[in-house]
């Protein structure tokens, strides 16, 4: 199939037809890549909800050069030949991204000092890069009590931004989904059927796909700030999954096991709960070596390697 040309922030790139604007931007890489809070390339049907990846289409295509009337979600809009997209070069996009960040933070508790996700939280990164330094709100936030969903996962609904990623993981990775979004509008919540435990070999991936600290690993909670732990690539023979993981160690102790995430924070491969929760002994793993930390994130604090 012949490639088509698209220009994003004055940089031209050739991609296959059907590629989204976001994926085309990721092909270019660097600052022109829009942030994503709900889109996850490995989850079918994800994206379009958080609106943080909105971009301006200044020219629809070579054939029909009219601009698109509204900003579009780059994660769900396919490129056309000759399309011209503005992301960081458009003041309108940046203004609206700031506003979206404000909306996402409106009911988010900002309890980063006690949140396990701090350091690797996408919302933290988004607000660091696009948020306001001061707040416009004096309103109370909506609150929920944290609940345990099973013995391995903790749900802090207060922190949830309703990206639907964990729902899609359960839909697409596990045999049976026992949780979903209940309620409507800003009182909707992620919940299980009458506090039913989420018990499935791959349920732990919900923790990894959660962009914020709404779903956290109960075996790791409050053990350490993530930036005090050092990541190592490791693997083991696992009958259920690829067994390729990242071990997060403090000294010689393995505090946490997660999947391997790429530079956009997406898992390369989903891992099973056995690897994630049950193997925290160095003897369980073949350690490949230290894992590079993305400078992009707050987690790169306390890591001194050069880029």
């Amino acid at each position, binding site marked *: 199939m012949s490639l088509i040309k698209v220009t994003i922030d004055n940089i031209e790139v050739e991609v296959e037809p059907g590629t989204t604007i976001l994926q085309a931007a990721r092909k270019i890489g660097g600052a022109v890549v829009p942030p994503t809070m709900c889109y996850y390339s490995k989850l079918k049907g994800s*994206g*379009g*909800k*958080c*609106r*943080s990846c*909105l971009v301006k289409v200044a020219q629809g295509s070579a054939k029909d050069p009219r601009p698109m*009337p*509204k*900003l579009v*979600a780059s994660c*769900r809009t396919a490129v056309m030949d000759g399309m011209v997209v503005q992301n960081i070069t458009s003041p309108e996009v940046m203004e*609206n991204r700031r*506003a*979206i960040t*404000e*909306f*996402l933070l*409106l*009911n988010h508790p900002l309890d980063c000092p006690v949140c396990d996700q701090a350091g690797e939280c996408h919302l933290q990164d988004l607000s660091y890069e696009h948020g306001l330094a001061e707040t*416009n*709100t004096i*309103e109370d936030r909506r609150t929920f009590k944290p609940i345990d969903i099973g013995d391995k996962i903790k749900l802090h609904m207060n922190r949830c*931004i*309703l990206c*639907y990623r964990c729902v899609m993981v359960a839909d697409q990775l596990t045999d049976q989904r026992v949780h*979903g*979004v209940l*309620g*409507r*509008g*800003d*009182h*909707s919540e992620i919940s299980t059927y009458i506090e039913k435990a989420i018990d499935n070999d791959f349920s732990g991936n919900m923790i990894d796909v959660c962009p914020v600290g709404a779903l956290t690993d109960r075996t790791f909670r409050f053990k350490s700030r993530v930036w005090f732990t050092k990541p190592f690539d490791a693997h083991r023979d696992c009958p259920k999954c690829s067994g390729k993981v990242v071990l997060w160690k403090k000294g010689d102790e393995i505090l946490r096991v997660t999947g391997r995430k790429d530079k956009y924070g997406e898992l390369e491969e989903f891992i099973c709960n056995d690897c994630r929760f049950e193997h925290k002994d160095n003897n369980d793993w073949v350690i490949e070596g230290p894992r590079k930390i993305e400078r992009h994130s707050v987690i790169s604090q306390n890591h001194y390697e050069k880029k």
Partner: protein
Amino acid sequence: MAQKILLNNIDVPGLATFEVYRKLGGYSAVEKTLKSLTPDEVTAEVKKSGLRGRGGAGFPTGMKWSFIDKSTDKPRYFVCNFDESEPGTFKDRYFGTLNPHQLIEGMILGSYALGAKTSYIYIRGELFYVLQIIEKAIEEAYANGFLGKNILGTDYSLDLYCQPGGGAYICGEETALIESLEGKRGNPRIKPPFPAIVGLYDCPTVVNNVETISVLPWILNNGADAYSSIGVGNSKGTKLISACGHINKPGIYEIELGLPVEEFIYSDEYCGGILNGNKLKAVVAGGSSVPILPAELILKTAKGEPRLMSYESLAEGGFETGTMMGSGGFIVMDDTTCIVKNTLTFARFYHHESCGQCSPCREGTGWMEKILQRIEDGNGTMKDIDLLFNISKHIEGNTICPLGDAAAWPVAAAIRHFRAEFEEHVKQQKCPLSR
């Protein structure tokens, strides 16, 4: 006397029964069409009539039909949107209660034109009594051979079902309606693809409003030219307007498009003037989501021409000085009305009805309600007014479906035209109109 298409027989006792409807010439359009016209000819006739969608957006109906994907072997569906729940709009409920057979006749014609073998009327859950009336009418239509296998001996067969929703405003958005009809949570889908390509059960689907569908029998009986001779400009035919608020004669009126707004409000044939002889303050012309206009701009456009009840004339001046036809919910307010409180009521509605899928609408609608509540209670600041306007601007156009726009427009318009009243609330630290 104005031409009536939908309400001409509405006062006939027993119109909801098959016998009475049939005696008045009902189902003759089905007889004529199924025997003498091809589906494409029906679509062409509707296109020619200039009929525009009556649900709010005013998209040309024939055009919408022509987008349906006929290249696949998949079944095609025709769906009636009876999820009427816009505050101020209550025309479909009235019409469907009294004349269900005209809707069913329209469903048969539309389904035939689109080649649908199964069609649905998706009705708002709260309208359970209307559902019962429609289901009874559907039964009668089956019994008389107008639905089911081989209608009137032709090789066209159609099954029609009436499905109640859970009573959510968002399910009036066509893709949310489709999700709900499939038995899922009523979240709007991300478009494209549009329902004409991927709709109900991933098959090509057309969703039309009750009023749009109910007009079809008249168009096919009397011809597209007769229909397009009514109205002005690109606003053809008649429109049901549900008038409410501070008027002497609230109710449902069928008007010929192009009627001057002033005549609609003040003539005895329609609203009959303002209640208690008060002064007109503002009008929301097309249901709660459209921009509110002050008296001087609803009666005359910014250019000083009389404003007409038509898609173009109401929209004249854009959102700066104009509004929209919307779904025909005509809300009139006299000078005792507090615009802030009215805007708060609308904002509360949209906050309650937001599906919560995308962040600007989920978070922004609640935020706007809280700020409006603060201003109405006398606890607002001047900064809040600007903040409110900015929030509405950041919701507008940034959401998956038009509910975000619908929530943002009334707030932005209220501040645009009645900023002084918002400021008065802040200055006096109370609602100046509260009794």
